[in-house]
């Protein structure tokens, strides 16, 4: 029997799901700061969304992504609000891949990350081009201006800028989430609806067995 979106969402956030989604929203907002503290040239602004998509499901991931962008714009970057559709794409696509077992096989994880990066670039390009004319008050604006100065249209320039950074960022995010889920013991994974989406670490489970 098919369930309504509301029913599916409620199943995803049942039990530990709801507080974990809240943590992942906060993680989305602070992972970038952590990366810059370690002087790593990556954003990781969708780390929490991907984690929720794998461990809980697509609907709660969409909610986590949209809330991250709303709160992100409240805490200092107003532009983030308009990129909520990109987070919807990330949450839905990652949830779809996780349900089909892409996070159970290590070799599928980077492929999924690259695909996600390309999708994110496609989703964000029209918003950045038509709403903000390519200016998003970030360091990557210089890349957009460079691509425009060599003769590309605005939409092409914004898309190329996204394509130069998003696949790398999303692949790293996917690999990090895979490693994180792999390091979780079974008794914690069982608390989440998507606990079966990730590989079992038998050695770890023997150590933490009840």
């Amino acid at each position, binding site marked *: 029997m098919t369930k309504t979106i509301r029913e599916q969402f409620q199943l995803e956030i049942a039990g530990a799901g709801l507080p974990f989604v809240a943590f992942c929203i906060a993680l989305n907002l602070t992972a970038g700061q952590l990366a810059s503290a370690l002087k790593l040239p990556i954003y990781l602004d969708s780390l929490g969304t991907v984690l929720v998509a794998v461990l809980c499901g697509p609907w709660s991931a969409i909610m986590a992504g949209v809330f991250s962008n709303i709160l992100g714009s409240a805490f200092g970057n107003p532009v983030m609000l308009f990129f909520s559709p990109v987070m919807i794409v990330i949450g839905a696509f990652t949830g779809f891949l996780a349900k089909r077992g892409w996070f159970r096989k290590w070799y599928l994880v980077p492929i999924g990350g690259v695909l996600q990066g390309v999708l994110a670039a496609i989703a964000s390009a029209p918003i950045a081009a038509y709403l903000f004319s390519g200016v998003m008050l970030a360091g990557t604006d210089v890349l957009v201006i460079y691509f425009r100065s060599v003769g590309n249209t605005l939409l092409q320039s914004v898309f190329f800028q996204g394509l130069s950074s998003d696949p790398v960022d999303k692949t790293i995010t996917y690999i990090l989430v895979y490693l994180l889920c792999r390091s979780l013991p079974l008794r*914690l994974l069982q608390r989440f609806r998507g606990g079966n989406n990730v590989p079992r670490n038998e050695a770890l489970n023997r150590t933490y067995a009840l």
Partner: protein
Amino acid sequence: MRFDVGEKLSATLFLILLAIILPWYLNAALVLCLLIARSTVPSIRPASQVLRRRFRQLSGYFTIVVVLMTLVNGLLMEGGTQWEVPGGFSISRVGLEFGLRTGMRLLVIATSLLLFFGSTTIPRIAQFLQSAGWPVQLVMTLLLTLHFVETLPDRVSMIFTAQEARGAPVRANMFARTKGFFLILSPLVLSAIVESIDRSMALELRGFHRGTKLTFDGETAAPGRMTIVSLAFLVLSFFCILWIILQWFQQ
């Protein structure tokens, strides 16, 4: 003049849409009007000293970025009249106009959002959403997120120091630092899951999953109502959207 959260929200939506329609010089005038309104209308004054300081810092930052972006666009783009500047560079009129149009639009959007979030605390927004009939789970998620946002930096710093003390490579080359990132992230997520389980039990004991609505400070949440001001802003926003769609078709 007092505005409630719904009225401020609809006014913000209208201002964002207006920024897309107006030419750059009217957007510049609108920014000035918003800044004057910030110090004269009590409802949109920053809710605390911290928010006041943050508003000042962010609006200063955005103004600098907009000026820089306008200049860079003028320097790199070609077309229209070219003005010579010292150092052998030339600034194009088309690039400058493009930069001004985009920059002023962004400044209006940033200022209106900063005014809204600066004068309205997140718990007040959550209270408004609940009275407007939003599912209690969404409101609860928003409030729990605030708790995590507040505590996460301290936790990260604690784990960072602990991992550094036990010799984790947090200051070595980039590959080692990426590994160090995982060494910080892993205990952070693990501790968050344990805390989530504790919190979910507390919520369960309070009967949260029965779908009963929470109240704030013992008050019963009043049902949301649409005021004339909200309605007026929403109607104006609707006309703005129509105008934008018409412009797109004409292009």
